[in-house]
């Protein structure tokens, strides 16, 4: 690949952003609607939000909940998915349970969880945890199931115990698939984070957004959308870099979809 082609590839997402903002600008100028500020107005409102201490505390609270929920989900879901992939009994036990939970929108469970656990951090973190868990479990399961049996036999012949085989063979062998699940999970974490703050308003990025909406501060609403969107893009790009680095051994180099690396 020539360097100019590589540059073009790197710059493509930037052009996509600029294109999107330009379309927004034109659309809002044409529509002339009070509740639809232009892109430039919205971008101008960004620094005032990021400069405000109260807003920053809110945004960090959101990110903290998201990180906790995401981290807890990985800690539980990866081992569970791997176990399900390697043990028919574990899979038979959890599969029906997951099949029931899977199609239920996790945010729809929030009222019940709020009833039990209140409107604080715990409820929101739990909802994020639930939202992230399923794709991570599913991909870990698929990854573990696909591990070549002869690889495990080779390990067993070297003297690895069943637990060691799970940690030292199944986990790395399934890592590419697991990380694909985690990447989906990360985006879902952001979505459930905002949704949870929309339902249980108290603090957070979602809270700023919906308060502004109530008060008719539309430039702040759109500025928050830009901030949350940018957070999502950055997190995904960072995760993608980490992922690509961790599974360099597995992948042909050029077919990384949606990457900013």
């Amino acid at each position: 690949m020539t360097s100019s082609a590589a540059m073009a590839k790197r710059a493509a997402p930037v052009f996509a952003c600029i294109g999107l903002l330009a379309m927004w600008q034109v659309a809002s100028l044409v529509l002339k609607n009070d509740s639809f500020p232009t892109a430039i107005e919205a971008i101008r409102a960004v620094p005032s939000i990021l400069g405000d201490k109260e807003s920053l505390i809110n945004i960090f609270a959101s990110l903290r909940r998201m990180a906790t929920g995401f981290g807890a989900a990985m800690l539980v879901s990866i081992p569970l998915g791997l176990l399900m992939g390697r043990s028919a009994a574990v899979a038979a036990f959890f599969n029906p349970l997951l099949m029931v939970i899977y199609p239920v929108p996790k945010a729809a469970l929030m009222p019940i969880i709020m009833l039990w656990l209140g409107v604080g951090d715990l409820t929101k973190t739990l909802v994020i945890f639930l939202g992230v868990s399923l794709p991570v479990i599913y991909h870990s399961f698929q990854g573990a199931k696909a591990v070549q049996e002869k690889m495990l036999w080779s390990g067993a012949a070297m003297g690895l115990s069943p637990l060691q085989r799970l940690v030292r063979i199944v986990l790395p062998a399934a890592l590419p698939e697991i990380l694909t699940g985690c990447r989906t999970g990360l985006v879902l974490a952001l979505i459930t984070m905002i949704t949870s703050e929309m339902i249980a308003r108290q603090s957070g990025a979602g809270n700023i957004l919906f308060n502004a909406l109530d008060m008719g501060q539309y430039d702040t609403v759109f500025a928050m959308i830009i901030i949350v969107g940018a957070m999502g893009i950055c997190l995904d790009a960072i995760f993608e870099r980490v992922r690509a680095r961790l599974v360099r051994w597995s992948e042909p180099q050029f077919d990384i979809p949606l990457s900013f690396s």
Partner: protein
Amino acid sequence: MKARQNGRGSNDAPHVCEGDGLSGRFLAKLVLLNVRASETRYGMTVVAARSSEWMRPVTSQEPASAIIEIDRVSQVFQTSARKDHLALSDISLTIEEGAFVSILGPSGCGKSTLLYIVGGFVSPTSGMAKIKGHAITGPGPDRGPVFQEFALFPWKTVLGNVMYGPRQQGVRAAEAEAQSRALIEMVGLKGYENFYPKELSGGMKQRVALARTLAYHPEVLLMDEPFGALDAHTRTRLQNDLLTIWERDRKTVLFVTHSVDEAVFLSDKVIMMSKSPGRIRQVIDIDLPRPRRRNELLLDPRYQKYVVDIERMFDDSDEAGPAL
């Protein structure tokens, strides 16, 4: 022991090696490394025993002892049609320590299954397999498999793969690395230490798989059509390399193959199996001198006779096929 008596006078003198990837020097170095490793691991008292075992002269006069005994083993598989499929029927077999034994037979006759039973990966429906008098209940580092599918760890480099076994056995990292590097050199992959399996060709992967298994010094090598997927040239090279390694340290080898030439060229004993149900048809002792050199052997009428006879037996069994 039969195999050793056959190795007429080849004793301890380093052979001139045919396999281009190999050199006697590296092998000697490897032996030294191994001895040193056992010194640090087991202390002085055990060293003598271990190193002498490793260096045991080829002409030693001790009686042939059975290392693997397979006693009336049968294997039934439940197929998806819920019919029982008799893959192995009443197999009894004794393999002597240090022997190179090939299993030859038509596809689906249960060669792999038999190897997996000895490996402890599959437990037989009836009968039992023993190693050194103990019943085989599971896999262990005394039996090292080399699979046709390679089954390398793709997240490890060549060096990482080869070091995996010794590290698991508690060999210190520096020692394991030194031994592994010597092995990698021995199988002709010097310079590829930091390559990942996906970056290697089939023949190279097979070499890594062999080195990975040799690295933890199993007493018995279980090789399932290790050269089946390779082109003729690579196959010949690897056969030569394997023979050189084997003639050096006389591990017991159980070698599954489709190829009559390969079986006769490599083995002390060829076990011919027949299909549905898998049975032992005949056991043939291959009485050819060692060390064996390909170019000499191909011209040897005795070699040619073995190949022709075994091929004829297969043809006979094909004709008798429907009756089975």
